[in-house]
């Protein structure tokens, strides 16, 4: 389709010409947005009023999942986890959005649990009288089946399985009790187990894991049950009449899949979404102008600006001769024009960060200062590290090797598509040649995992602000883990290990702050930005609030028009 659009470029142009020549309609009065609207804050009235039941709620989602089985590696992507968790699938516990930014645990399918003093035994009491969407009762055998599906090495469940490397045993002594035992204590072990196991009926997990019927039509215990999935168009959920908890207000939840941001913007302008997500920064800024042509956005929608727990980074593969030296990595960081990127590419919306944890948590050391944009300093550091232009060809070299590398880029990232050519120019000016190679997402991820890249960019995100960076920075994790850059530093290893067994949050935060400082000093990554949710919600939508764990649609309702 898009190829056809390109081929018809000339036609589009002609259409555009005609449009230009039309006599201008009488200019309507300007629409000046309120300050809260500009900041992306929801006004108080959204949380007020007596909820009214009924109505359908349409959300724009950017990506189509490969399937709807939360346990499956290839299906569980960021967006489907957001809209399925808590709505269709429920876990034993959930992150309590009311306790932002700490996100304490709140029981969901568990009535409660007890932890042994050494944190190695977790005994969960399960809720009674809960029924799955297919009518089967929920018992401990379902929890067991889900855990066994995750642990089964035949299944593509490596992401969730990584939570259970220290699992010793598990058992279901009766229908409403479940016990897990760990070989060693780990501060996130129980939390991960309680919040991430999407519970589905044991009967639904029988058979070949890759072709289960629930991969296409999920069965859970949540307040919404799956109705239909039109590939490429929409996934529909209806209210679950036999829900065990408080009845949700909405009758229907429609997830509209619109991959193309421009098309999504046009549909949004036509009012097709109650909740528009992933508004592009340029669009976000353009509708602020106060121009009458933006009235639909200013008068029809509340904007939502909320910082996600995600940070984007550029990784330098330390297996390559260029990047092993910390001074080179620092030099490259000094060539990243933080301010100008913020103003010209991020339009002031993404926030520069230095921290691998949630920005508003106590895990970040707020005294860590970002390296300035400083070309002279970068040159000096590169010279110190031995990179000089000895043969006068304009490219730095060391021991006969020219400083030439390739940046692996994902063509779907609009931001990196702009940023990388900019960095390429910055690097060229100090004598570093960087080529750009594009790779489709699956290839891209595979190559990151195989450490088959020089430089690349990614974002690490977590719905839970309590997170563990062991998998990302521990030297043992360069094989099989997420330490794609092969970073190895004994002191960091030690800190990461201490953090894992520190159950006192204050003490753990202190260790995490030390880790943050050390990682930034080492320039393990070129830390870039935290990204916000840039969303908008129709003004008749009430009881909606952004959180790290996305929106709680159980509380959302629609104010009928008078």
């Amino acid at each position: 389709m898009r190829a056809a659009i390109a081929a018809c470029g000339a036609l589009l142009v002609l259409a555009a010409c005609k449009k230009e020549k039309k006599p201008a309609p009488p200019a309507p009065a300007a629409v000046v947005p309120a300050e809260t609207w500009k900041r992306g804050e929801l006004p108080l009235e959204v949380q007020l009023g007596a909820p009214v039941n009924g109505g359908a709620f349409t959300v724009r989602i950017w990506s189509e999942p490969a399937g709807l089985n939360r346990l499956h590696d290839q299906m569980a992507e960021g967006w489907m986890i957001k809209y399925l968790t808590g709505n269709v699938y429920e876990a034993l516990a959930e992150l309590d959005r009311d306790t932002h930014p700490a996100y304490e645990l709140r029981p969901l399918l568990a009535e409660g649990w007890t932890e042994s003093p050494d944190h190695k035994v977790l005994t969960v009491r399960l809720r009674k009288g809960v029924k799955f969407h297919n009518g089967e009762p929920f018992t401990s055998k379902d929890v067991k089946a889900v855990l066994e599906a995750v642990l089964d090495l035949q299944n593509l469940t490596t992401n969730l399985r990584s939570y259970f490397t220290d699992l010793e045993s598990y058992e279901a002594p009766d229908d409403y009790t479940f016990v897990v035992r760990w070989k060693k204590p780990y501060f996130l072990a129980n939390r991960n187990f309680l919040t991430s196991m999407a519970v589905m009926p044991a009967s639904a997990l029988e058979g070949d894991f890759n072709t289960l019927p629930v991969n296409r039509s999920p069965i859970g215990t949540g307040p919404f049950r799956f109705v239909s999935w039109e590939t490429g168009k929409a996934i529909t959920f209806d209210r679950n009449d036999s829900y065990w908890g408080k009845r949700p207000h909405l009758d229907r939840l429609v997830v509209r899949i619109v991959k193309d941001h421009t098309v999504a913007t046009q549909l949004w302008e036509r009012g097709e979404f109650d909740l528009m997500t992933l508004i592009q920064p340029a669009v976000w800024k353009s509708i602020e102008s106060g121009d009458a042509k933006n009235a639909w956005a200013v008068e029809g929608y509340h904007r939502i600006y909320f910082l996600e727990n995600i940070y984007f980074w550029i990784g330098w593969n330390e297996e390559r001769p260029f990047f092993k030296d910390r001074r080179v990595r620092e030099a490259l960081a000094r060539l990243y024009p933080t301010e100008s990127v913020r103003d010209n590419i991020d339009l002031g919306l993404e926030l520069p960060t230095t921290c691998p944890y949630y920005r508003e948590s106590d895990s970040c050391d707020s005294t860590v200062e970002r390296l300035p944009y400083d070309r002279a300093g970068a040159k000096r550091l590169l010279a110190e590290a031995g990179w000089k232009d000895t043969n006068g060809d304009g490219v730095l070299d060391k021991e006969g090797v020219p400083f030439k590398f390739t940046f692996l880029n994902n063509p779907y990232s609009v931001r990196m598509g702009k940023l990388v050519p900019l960095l390429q120019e910055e690097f060229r000016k100090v004598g570093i040649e960087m080529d750009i190679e594009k790779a489709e997402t699956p290839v891209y991820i595979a190559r990151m995992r195989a450490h088959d890249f020089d430089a690349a960019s990614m974002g690490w995100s977590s719905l839970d602000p309590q997170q563990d960076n062991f998998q990302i920075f521990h030297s043992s994790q360069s094989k099989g883990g997420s330490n794609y850059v092969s970073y190895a530093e004994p002191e960091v290893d030690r800190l990461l290990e201490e953090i894992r067994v520190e159950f006192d949050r204050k003490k753990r935060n202190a260790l995490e702050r030390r880790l943050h400082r050390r990682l930034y000093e080492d320039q393990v990554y070129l830390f870039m930005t935290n990204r916000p949710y840039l969303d908008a919600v129709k003004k008749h939508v009430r009881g909606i609030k952004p959180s790290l764990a996305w929106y709680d649609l159980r509380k959302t309702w629609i104010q009928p028009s008078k």
Partner: protein
Amino acid sequence: MSAAQKLRGGPLFRVWRQLRRRRLSLVALGVLAVMFLMALMAEQLASDKPVAVRVDGATHWFPNLTDPAALRNENVHRLRSRLRPELGEWMIEPLIPYGPFQTYAEQPTQPTSAPPWAPDGEHFLGTDELGRDVLARIVHGTRVSLTVGFVAVSIYVAIGVLLGALAGYYGGAVDALVSRVTEVMMTFPTLFFILAVLGLMRVQSMVPIMVVIGLTRWTDVCRLVRAEVLRLKRLEFVEAARALGASDARIILRHLLPNAMGPVMVAATFGVAGAILIESALSFLGFGVPPPTASWGELLTQAHRYVVHPGAWWLTLFPGLAIFLTVTAFNLAGEGLRDALDPRLKE
């Protein structure tokens, strides 16, 4: 007969005389000539480095081509402001004092808003979302488009002529084989085939695009040549050549192909237009030439993000016009050539 007379009476001259009568074809040829000049002289037309400069006691000729280390961090605007004519320093500027890679970070005046910027006195056709001059990028993009067009078409004309001539001349099993292969190749949708090949390739460059277009689109040429050779080989002059003891190779190369080249040239002219469109489509999809190379399709990709909110019509209009003009010019030239070569339309 003198050489000039020979030329006047030659087939090329006859074609030219026919072409000259068709005003539209002449205009098309004119447009193409301008495009070629743009491609050849891109650096002289648009560059952030001067054509020649004397500064700091050294004279640099064509730093826009050589990018000397001494001027690495300079650009035309910076040089302009620090040039001291009283010391005998001078500079020859390119027509457009912006290079295709010169971003918002390297503007003569501090930008007050984020790019893309609308056309103004500084940037005649506006800038893209990185603040790069659209005119400079269109001029440099011409090179990509024309290179892809001509190299790809050359590859497939070569393949098509060879296979077509063999099939037509020898017939039988050779013909059957070539014809079946042709039919199989025709079932490949070029664009998707290229996308698949590019997905498998590690290097991103113009080369695989040109090669894949070349390897997939030879079928039309092949069928044309085969049909012509089939027709021609039964004519008396071929009989005569054979009677004189000419080898197969000589008959094909000296007698058959020169007479069969007319329709091939027409197909090739249309083919260049097609290849340019494919390259634009690929760049539009993000699989064209690697960044930051300027290409028309890449500009259209950006335009796609600026359709309504915020509108940036210059990102659609100008690269779109460049593609439209070039493709139309090639098609008109092709039509003119076809009519000129058609014996039935002769005076």
